[in-house]
């Protein structure tokens, strides 16, 4: 259960962090995040196992080095895709209402999903993650290495991003989110901030997509359902509050814990079989509804001050 918790939690946290970056700096609610995650994972699968870029030119380099460089190439491609999408579809919406932009990303989600599913086909594409089944034995618990890696990656990413928001560019991002016009008047290049946020956001989505496709539970690889699995990160985002990095991480691990615990509990207690199959999958949403009943802006979200 610990393993399940950590792996699910890391995935949700990573997805949520990437999402929050885009929201925090551009106020865009990105429904296409799940599709971007699946697309990123598929890019890694293509680079690492199908096209073997740049592995085919690396000769007898160790497998992990080949795989990592492929992953880096794929992440660069994901960043490029994020830039292009932002430039084509989000930039024209600059200054429009929040809902219109959110619905644009919903349309974007459909477009990305249709196109990438078509390339993927019906069979799962393996990612060729090296060191697949090796585990870290702590004596009292055995954790697969890829879970350990995912937790480390999550924490490193969060620290990096939290520091980034304190830097000059990060402050500019927050200013842009607060008021695009005022930020522009202060000499901030709002367009560039949008590009940057989308590039970082889609890289984060791709990283989350990798882990989404390699965990022991779903070791088969990336397939057409991956984008839908990523939707389960939305409760994590809401739970933590739309605009809080810390909230995203806490929300991610909390949702992961709840889902892992409930799934574990149900598999041990046949008397609860009346709940039917797939109850674990809806736990995040139920939890989200409950939390929102009590705290409408999530646990760490900024409350909207309603003033006359």
């Amino acid at each position, binding site marked *: 259960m610990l393993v399940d918790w950590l792996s699910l939690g890391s995935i949700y946290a990573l997805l949520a962090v990437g999402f929050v970056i885009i929201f925090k700096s551009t106020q865009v*609610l990105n429904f296409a995040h799940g599709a971007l995650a699946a697309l990123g994972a598929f890019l890694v699968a293509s680079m690492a196992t199908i096209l073997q870029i740049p592995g085919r030119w690396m000769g007898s380099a160790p497998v992990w080095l080949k795989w990592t460089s492929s992953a880096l190439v794929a992440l660069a491609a994901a960043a490029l895709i994020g830039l292009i999408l932002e430039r084509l*579809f989000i930039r*024209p*919406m600059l200054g*429009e209402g*929040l*809902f*219109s932009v*959110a*619905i*644009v990303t*919903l*349309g*974007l*989600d*459909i*477009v990305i999903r*249709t*196109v990438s*599913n*078509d390339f993927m086909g019906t069979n799962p594409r393996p990612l060729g993650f090296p060191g697949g089944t090796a585990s870290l034995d702590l004596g009292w618990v055995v954790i697969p290495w890829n879970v350990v890696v995912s937790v480390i990656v999550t924490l490193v990413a969060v620290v990096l991003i939290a520091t980034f928001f304190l830097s000059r560019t990060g402050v500019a991002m927050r200013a842009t989110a607060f008021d695009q016009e005022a930020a522009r008047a202060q000499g901030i290049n709002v367009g560039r901030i949008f590009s940057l946020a989308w590039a970082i956001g889609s890289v984060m989505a791709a990283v989350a997509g990798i882990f989404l496709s390699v965990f022991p539970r779903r070791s088969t690889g990336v397939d057409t359902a991956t984008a839908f699995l990523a*939707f389960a990160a*939305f*409760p994590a*985002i*809401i739970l933590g509050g*739309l605009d809080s990095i810390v909230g995203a991480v806490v929300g991610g691990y909390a949702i992961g814990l709840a889902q892992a615990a409930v799934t574990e509990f149900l598999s041990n207690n046949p008397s609860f079989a009346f*709940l*039917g*199959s*797939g*109850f674990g*999958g*809806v736990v*995040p*949403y*139920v939890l*989200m*509804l409950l939390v*929102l*009943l009590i705290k*409408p*802006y*999530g646990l760490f979200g900024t409350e*909207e001050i*309603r*003033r*006359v």
Partner: protein
Amino acid sequence: MRGRPLLVTNYADDQAMLKSTTQTVMAGLFLLFLVCIPLFAPGAIGGGESRIPGPTFLAGADWLKLLSELGIFAMAALGLNILSGLAGQVSLGHAFFMGLGAYTAAVLGSGPGALWGVGLPIWVWLPMAGLIPAAVGIVISPTAVRVRGLYLAIVTLGLVFIGEYVWRNLDFITGGSQSGRNFPALQVRLWREEEALLDLEASGTWLGFLNLSGEGKFYLFILALTVLFVIVAKNIQRSRVGRAFQAIRDRDVAAEIMGVDEFRYKTLAFAISSFYAGVAGALLAVEVGRTIPEQWDLLLSVEIIAIVLIGGAGSISGVLMGSAFVVLLPRLVQDFGNLLQQSAASGGVLATIFDPILSTGPGDFGVVNLSPGVAPGLGILQLNTLIYGLLIIAFLIFEPLGLYGVWVRIRNYWKGWPFTY
């Protein structure tokens, strides 16, 4: 003509459902055309081959089904339009309420069998298919009213996923993912055992001289219901309730200060929109005949959102245009695909033009693929989905007012013609 056209001098004129004589006449003629569609078929009137002259293909079974579907989607979208277009509450959960309406209808309307069914007549199950979702809408609206804006969008997204899980597991009602279930037939009877007074699915003769197919009757029934729903929606829009909705949409704090009870009206908006969704869901299920739980998914919600956005949020004629666009689009794409295939097969100039678009076998990288599984490229179904997505984006970027906005611009251009203003 007296005075300036469309000059409004009193409040009643401003609030009128049809604003001018021209509008009334045009709407009447259009409605007459719609009613006559099933009578375009040869032999529709009297004993011989006589019929009302008009495009015969519209009276074919496939087109009548398509037009019925159009009406059903229009009803669903009218509901979402009240919630999102008038009251300004974005909801991705419309598919959930449609599913709820469908299964309410199934349980109440179908006869007892392997799955739950009570076998009540249509005048019970059709209203209940709206009322039960409306009640559920009221029950969950406290959560929905408390959360604002973008949070609401995600909460309603959660509703769709929870709903899909519930439908999958209530297999004694829904039949489960494997088999799905059948839905009651559209037959009007007084109570369970009676002979059907009116069978809307079998062909027959009405008034002694109108020979109608089952599809034709179904179409007329849907048409009547759609017109009713349009009138109700229009009346909601131009009444006190509708103005309260619009006040909340434009600025909720200001609306509350003016004395609009925000909680009450948001709940009401949810209830009305769920009622529309439920009835539309039940009729959609009846029309399709057999549905599986996975049908009520996010894509259905997005389709309804697409109708509202493409048509123009907040406008009823926009919703009607939008549903015509979205429902007829797959058919047009299909026809376009067939055209491509024919021209590719026949050779000639068209084939050369279309060949880069078309993917006919492995190794041929065209965009459109007409033989799924064999060649790369998008199948017709995927092409449809892709076009929905792109259209939503394109309309939001280029014409936020939707088809209604396009229509207004065309109208204004001709109103001032040959002057530009």
